[in-house]
């Protein structure tokens, strides 16, 4: 697949999914603490979201960052627009703005503070590379 094809697929995925997270690893097996935290926040709001693992091909991250003008992973998009990375999503989660923006009610059992990830428990490189 050419770089342009990858870029087009990313643009299409962002357009086609109301909420889409580009992350390291998968929601079930996040490979980075920041990705894990972002997944945790979306899950505690019960928001359905699409997730793309950027690890299988370094060009995914390259093309995504040049498209979004944002250097780091994770990146959360809503209605085609970049909401931010883990820090911004955390700030929005804790202020209630994330639920409002995504059009959901904050569930009664959602923690007030963003669920913390455990970067130390993130999968080591060998496991990251195993993905796909």
């Amino acid at each position, binding site marked *: 697949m050419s770089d342009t094809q990858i870029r087009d697929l990313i643009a299409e995925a962002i357009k086609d999914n109301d909420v889409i997270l580009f992350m390291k690893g998968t929601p079930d097996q996040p490979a980075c603490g920041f990705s894990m935290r972002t997944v945790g926040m979306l899950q505690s709001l019960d928001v359905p979201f699409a997730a793309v693992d950027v690890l299988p091909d370094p060009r995914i991250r390259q093309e995504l960052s040049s498209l979004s003008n944002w*250097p780091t992973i994770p990146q959360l998009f809503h209605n085609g627009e970049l*909401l*931010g990375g883990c820090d911004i999503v955390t*700030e929005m989660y804790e202020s209630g703005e994330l639920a409002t923006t995504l059009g959901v009610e904050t569930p009664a059992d959602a923690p007030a503070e963003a669920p913390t990830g455990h970067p130390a428990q993130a999968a080591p490189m060998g496991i990251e590379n195993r993905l796909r």
Partner: protein
Amino acid sequence: MPSADEVKNRIEAAIPGAEAEVQTPDEVHFSARVRAGAFGGLSRVQQHRLVMEIFDGELGGSIHALELKTEAT
């Protein structure tokens, strides 16, 4: 490896009127709180971009992570 002061000074030099508080446990992971008048009218994503582009090419390299909180003053 940049020190917390170095990161702070670079942010304040690059963004006029900015005040930055920078912490780092290991000079690889940084957390910065930045207040600036220049952030007025910008979205959070745009505010973060202004800070991150100062360290273009270093993020993910000598600066492993830069945790950011921005605020318009």
